[in-house]
């Protein structure tokens, strides 16, 4: 038997969580660093796996299969392809960085925090690796609980953490139920939960009405998670309330579960329906992009602004996805355009993970010092915190799609595909690019960093008693950001290492629809 990469990557965090829960609660240091160490193992494994993955083959590799629940015909089926590999890597990377960052910033109920975080990692990775609907669903739900508690317990009291946590939980659950019913309907007609098998069968072909219902059921679950307009309002609340690391994972990984589901499940299951509804979903993508950007522009809370920007940025993902799905033509040059759009969508998820994840860390940097996120309370900070300014500038520029940094490449690919397949949508979509530049530079950079630094204003918000590190970014904060900055630059300058696997998988998926 081959080395069980996938099982190890998925369950090592669980083992770590169990061990950590056995450490006495007052040994906070040990719990913290043990958790960070544990999270490094899946990170290293995912890098090794990426290196061993045969790039010329876009299909599933490292597959594992075992009977799980015979009465249900449910199997323990795992596998990775070029879509899931970058996302698994993203998950393990962001988890390690989040735990490392939290080791310095989490002060209350340390043990619970780290245990829950490791369980969260297991749930998220499991979703990206499952090839069986039951397994997929279980992992999908497992991820929900720790995040619910992270928001509810470690949220700031003034941000209504309970309300936000329940809203997050219920909203996702509503989608999950709809998805579950659809899965069951599919199982009843095909007799299998195997995602790959169902993809090639084309489920519910003889009952079109049921197929449409199933399509929208699954769509709802993923659309809420992405989130697409108008199912996005849980996001700003959840983000605002969550602790920094929670927001990072929420934006960096949890939203990708929805995106991944679209590509792994909805598109292969119902390509014809997806094509049929593409014009409509495309409109939703455009609304998410532009509406999200406009609402971001109206924010005065830094964290809420970035939360809404996720709605806008994930809209680019949806546009790419829809462009790839809007036709079933597999002859060049259309196939190439579709593959480019889909690769762009996947890369957009990866980029959004590192960029927006980074932005949330950076909100944490200023929040830990001042306990405010009110844009009007800052000003002129570039003179006092030059390193912070530089790092925020670079991350912000990556977010607004400046060429040479990651965001641009995925936007280029998405629009390159969309302009060929649905030019009208693409032309409207580019408006979002201008708006993004406006809210990043006007709201974030200008209000926080430019202008005159006022000692008086600063003293009103900065409390040196509660901050024991350097005024400018502390070493642990720089270390947290460094890998993210590295990937922003790498993907922007030489995207081939990441894009090769994505591209092979997108081409393979589209070719097999």
């Amino acid at each position, binding site marked *: 038997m081959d080395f069980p990469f996938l099982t190890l990557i998925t369950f090592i965090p669980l083992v770590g969580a169990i061990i950590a*829960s056995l450490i006495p609660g007052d040994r906070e240091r040990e719990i913290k660093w043990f958790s960070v160490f544990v999270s490094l193992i899946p990170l290293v494994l995912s890098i090794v796996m990426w290196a061993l993955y045969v790039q010329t083959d876009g299909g599933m590799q490292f597959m594992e299969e075992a009977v799980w629940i015979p009465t*249900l015909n449910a199997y323990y089926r795992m596998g990775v392809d070029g879509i899931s590999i970058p996302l698994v890597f993203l998950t393990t990377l962001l988890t390690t960085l989040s735990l490392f960052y939290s080791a310095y910033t989490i002060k209350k109920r340390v043990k*619970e925090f780290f*245990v829950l975080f490791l*369980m969260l990692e297991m749930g998220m990775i499991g979703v990206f690796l499952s090839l069986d609907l039951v397994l997929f669903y279980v992992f999908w*739900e497992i991820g929900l*609980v*720790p995040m619910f*508690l992270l928001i509810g*317990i470690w949220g700031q009291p003034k941000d209504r953490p*309970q*309300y936000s946590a*329940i809203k997050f939980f*219920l*909203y996702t*659950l*509503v989608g999950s139920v709809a998805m579950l019913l659809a899965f069951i309907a599919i199982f009843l007609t095909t007799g299998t939960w195997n995602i790959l098998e169902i993809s090639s069968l084309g489920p519910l072909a003889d009952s079109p009405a049921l197929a449409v219902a199933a399509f929208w059921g699954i769509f709802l679950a993923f659309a809420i998670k992405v989130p697409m307009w108008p199912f996005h*309002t849980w996001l700003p609340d959840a983000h605002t309330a969550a602790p920094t690391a929670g927001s990072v994972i929420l934006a960096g990984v949890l939203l990708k579960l929805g995106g991944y589901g679209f590509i792994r499940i909805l598109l292969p299951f119902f390509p014809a329906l997806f094509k049929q509804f593409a014009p409509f979903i495309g409109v939703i993508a455009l609304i998410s992009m532009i509406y999200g950007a*406009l*609402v971001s522009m*109206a*924010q005065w809370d830094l964290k809420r602004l970035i939360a809404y920007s996720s709605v806008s940025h994930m809209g680019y993902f949806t546009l790419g996805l829809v462009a790839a799905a809007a036709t079933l033509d597999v002859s060049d040059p259309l*196939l*190439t*355009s579709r*593959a*480019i759009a889909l*690769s762009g969508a996947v890369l957009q998820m990866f980029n959004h993970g590192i960029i927006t994840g980074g932005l949330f860390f950076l909100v944490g940097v200023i929040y830990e010092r001042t306990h405010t996120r009110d844009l009007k309370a800052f000003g002129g900070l570039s*003179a006092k915190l030059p390193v912070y300014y530089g790092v925020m500038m670079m991350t912000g*520029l990556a977010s607004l799609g*400046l*060429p*040479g940094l990651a965001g*641009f490449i995925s936007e*280029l690919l998405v629009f*390159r*595909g969309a*302009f*060929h397949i649905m030019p009208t949508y*693409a032309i409207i979509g*580019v*408006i979002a*690019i*201008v*708006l993004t530049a*406006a809210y990043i*530079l*006007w709201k974030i950079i*200008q209000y926080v960093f*430019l*202008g*005159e*630094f006022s*000692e008086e204003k600063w003293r009103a918000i900065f409390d040196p008693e509660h901050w024991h590190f350097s005024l400018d970014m502390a070493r642990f904060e720089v270390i947290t950001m460094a890998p993210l900055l590295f990937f922003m630059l790498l993907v922007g300058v*030489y*995207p*081939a290492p990441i*894009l090769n696997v994505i*591209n*092979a998988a997108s081409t393979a998926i589209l070719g097999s629809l």
Partner: protein
Amino acid sequence: MEFFFNLVPLIPLIPLLAFAAIVLFTHRNNRLSSNIAIGGIALSTLVSWGVVLATILAGEHVQVEGWELPIPWLPTGTTVFNTGFAVDGFTAAMLFMVPFVCTMIFIYSQGYMNLGQPNQDPRYARFFAYISLFAAGMLGLVVADNLLLLFISWEVMGLCSYLLIGFWSFRDRDNEQHIDEAQVKRARAAALKAFITTRVGDVLLFSGLALLFSYTGTLTFREIFRPDMLEHLGSISLLGMPAVTVIALLAFGGAVGKSAQFPLHVWLPDAMEGPTPVSALIHAATMVAAGVYLVARMLPLFVAGFETANAPALQWVAVIGAITAFFGATIGLAQDDIKRVLAYSTISQLGYMMMGLGLGSLVAGIFHLLTHAFFKALLFLGSGSVIHGMEHGHHAAGAHGQTSQHDDGFSANDMKTMGGLRHKMPRTFWPYMAGTLALVGIVPFAGFWSKDEILAEAFQRWQESGALGLPFWVWLAGTLGALITALYMGRQIALVFWGEPRHEAATHAHESPNSMTGPLMVLAVFALIGGLANAPFLGSPLHHFMGGVHEASEVVHSATVSFNFAVAGLSTVVALLGLLGGWAIYRNYRAGEVEPFQRWLGPIFTLLRNKYYVDELYQLVIIRPVVWLADQVFNFDNRWVVDPLVNLVGAVGRAAADISLLFDKVAVDSGLVEGTAKAFNAFGGWLRQTQTGRVQNYLLVVAVTVLMLLGLYLYL
């Protein structure tokens, strides 16, 4: 010599490395940082000139067909996208000018930022890092063999212009006394305005790029410009036009933003808020030249499918160019800030370049781009030297106790505070005069030859068509523009260099250091003789060198326009009249008087001084509505519709909660969305009890519930 072509990638790479070195390693050492920057750009110039020489020696097979170095970069579906570098006659011509002018500006900056002086800029090293990146962007743009690399370089420049225009957009009261609050605000606004305004153009270019990429599967210039490719692009219909025309117009949109053409010109004058060497950099060798370069490089797309004389995309270029040339010049008449006059002059001169290109003449447009780069860099650096002298004079006057240090009304840029500086700053004055004569177009200075070529081109077109069509209007706008250009320059030199000093600062002004005046003199030489590069009596060498680069496309043809004595004579007379007129009118202007133009023109002068109120219009029609819309959309989202609906559903869900087992487990205990305070309290209490062990139980509950549900559905 062909060996030199292998070094082409180094041309942008060296300044890029200089940028990285300064940012990462040497930013604490000011002198080392600026030396790295200057050394980097100088080295880049050497390599560039080697490449230029190699191109000259290589003859037609490089000058026309080009040398290329493709590099596989991006996997795209079943294909791979190549990026890479290329050199042809056109690129070589740019490579002669860009790095050299940049080098002059870099050297000058060392003096301007007061290296080693007590008032040295506190962000000295950062400045040199930024301008190195700027130069790298422009050089990358010039040697790119494809539109994508060009666009990336283009945006890098956009970023640098943002950073440099906003260079003084924040301050640290402890260390930076000399930056005043109003300046901080202005710099901040100007930087944002520059980025967002050019971004509008960039997005159009980006759309054009994506469309082009979609239809052709490539962005490499040589591939796009193949006749069969152009024909294919022409055969696709988009928005009622051939796709190729749509793409050309979108690309032109990018150029309108970058090269500050009407109606996206508004950012350029405000860009003056950056340090003066930046203005020179932006206005001469880099940023604004990029837009013109883009149109010139993409010229076959503008023409494809039509005769040159009536290609719609090209006509747009000509019309916008003519409008910009004329209106930019008129605004220049009514400005008091020495740099703003030059800024509007740049806008206007860029309009001339676009006019040349719009008439289908690659060489005419680019010739003017090259000569303009030299004399406009000269004028900006000269104005910086004047401002520098005035600032020192201001300090000196303060030291003598004749005026207070915080003389709020004083601005070192205001021409009306100057006067008589030709005696105080002779080493600035003489080069400045060379630049002025070149700009105004007096024989034999550089601008004469290049501007004349554009006007001659328009004139000849007009004669050929025989009607008062577009060429006539272009020619008329150009000639009138030349008159106004001469007028505002006459006004400027009279106010700055002639008359009596109108302020204490001008009385005490003194000459700038050699590191500043040296580059002025070098540039003055080029302002004098630069026109020889394409002088008709030498057989138009530039024309033979780069005129053929678009021949392979079979749509753009290079034909020289013969020198036309009538056109040249008329524009010379007009220029002399304007220059002497402006000079005579303003020579004896005294401080505090209502100026002559204002007396004569009345409300028109007010209109010009306020730049036709375009800024106010944009504020009213675009910026405020967008901000308002953003607020309303947020209200819609958060307060009026979307979120209230969600909460409503939550409330309804709570009423129906006990129908579902799942809902029962999760929700009812804890109270539903937007629950009452009571529900919150209950939930809080429940939450507080939660222990790690309970969490695992809880997880189990969810999993079991799910499986039970499954079972239920299955076996029912």
